[in-house]
């Protein structure tokens, strides 16, 4: 009779189900008559079970809210950046790029490049009503929005006349040509949010930047859109936001000019 010897590793593989069926059969057979073999196998089965049981409580432990929130936010930002980049009409394949690049670079670049041509597109593309009630066409602002830009203080929110979109003024500043600019957001009925910048050009407002961000909880564009906006603001060398007094003064001047 030949008594086959099995190494620890083979027995471990047996216990872990990582062994070919033939060897499994041979071990099973040997175990029938060899208690020592059974004990050796049992050790591997037991250590696995014990390790699992010992660390189970860690799995049941609630993940700290802070961590969950941080990760959720990252995921949201990622989704929003993809959405923002894909909403704006662009040939396919834009998102592909060297994988080592920062995750932000491409979406931002896509947003920025697309902005100029896409402004008309966004509002017109959605629905027909949207096309008629659109806030701007080819970068020129409709009266309702123009009025809001000239009257609403930063930090305030209004419903735009005639359409139920909500307008939120964020800040007022001057760009590198000293034109008066306003950063604002518009929540549309379909719950998306447009983060935008409009600047005075001659005697009208022109939208120079817009990112469409999918809104979920009604309002406030997610962080990735803000990144795109920040990139834009630094590109136009936006001055610091005006104080409330400065803003009132600047907006008053604009309104006075309008009346002339």
């Amino acid at each position, binding site marked *: 009779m030949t008594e086959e010897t099995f190494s620890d590793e083979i027995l471990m593989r047996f216990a872990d189900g990582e062994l070919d069926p033939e060897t499994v059969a041979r071990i099973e057979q040997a175990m029938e008559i060899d*208690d020592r073999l059974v*004990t050796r196998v049992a050790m591997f089965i037991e*250590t696995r079970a*014990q390790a699992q049981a010992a660390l189970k409580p860690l799995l049941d432990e609630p993940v700290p809210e802070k*961590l969950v929130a*941080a990760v959720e936010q990252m*995921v949201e930002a990622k989704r929003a950046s993809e959405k923002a980049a894909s909403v704006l009409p662009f040939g396919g394949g834009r998102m592909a790029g060297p994988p080592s690049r*920062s995750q932000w670079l491409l979406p931002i670049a896509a947003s920025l490049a697309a902005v100029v041509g896409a402004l008309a597109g966004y509002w017109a593309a959605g629905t027909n009503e949207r096309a008629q009630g659109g806030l701007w066409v080819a970068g020129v602002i409709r009266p309702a929005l123009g009025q809001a830009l000239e009257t609403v203080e930063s930090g305030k929110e209004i419903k735009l006349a005639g359409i139920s979109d909500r307008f939120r003024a964020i800040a007022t500043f001057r760009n590198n040509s000293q034109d008066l600019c306003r950063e604002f957001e518009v929540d549309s009925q379909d719950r998306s949010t447009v983060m935008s910048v409009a600047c005075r050009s001659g005697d009208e407002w022109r939208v120079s930047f817009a990112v469409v961000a999918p809104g979920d909880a009604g309002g406030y564009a997610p962080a990735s859109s803000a990144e795109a906006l920040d990139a834009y603001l630094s590109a136009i060398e936006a001055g610091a936001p005006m104080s409330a007094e400065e803003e009132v003064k600047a907006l008053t001047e604009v309104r006075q000019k309008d009346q002339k």
Partner: protein
Amino acid sequence: MPEKTDRVQDQLVAFLPNLRRFAIALCRSRDMADDLVQRACERALANEQRFEQGTRFDAWMFKILRNLWIDDIRKRKVAGPQDDIDERHDIAGVSGEREMEARLALSGVAQAIGELPGDQRDVLLLVCVEELSYKEAAEILAVPIGTVMSRLARARKNLAEATGISTAPTRSAVTKGATK
């Protein structure tokens, strides 16, 4: 464009408990673990396009997290051979580390796992606790599958010794379920 189902961003939040457990077992401090988990998620999202559809998401995440952890240890310039870069550090490291350990309130077995040499512990965590295959563990640890097996066998022998699991040839230790 791929639909939602298999994407990293859709699986990340649900996977946090597992990822965090692995991190706690690696660095034995909840604060460090949470930071590690957060950075791993960040990296995963940034490299989402590198995740191969159809492969195991958990294995991919564990690899990212463990690599970050290894980087951290390297940055802290722990002297000594690569093989045990982490374990001595964990135990003898920063003052207060012991305290943290106590706060973890780990069972004897968990304690024993924590005291295994790092290379043995990692493979034990991946295969026995997280239930990855040898092959997947080898891929995560960037070692040959034979190395995984020898480390894992040693890890379990050490664990059995530390926790008093019988290795003696008695019948009573044999029957499954009746071994406690």
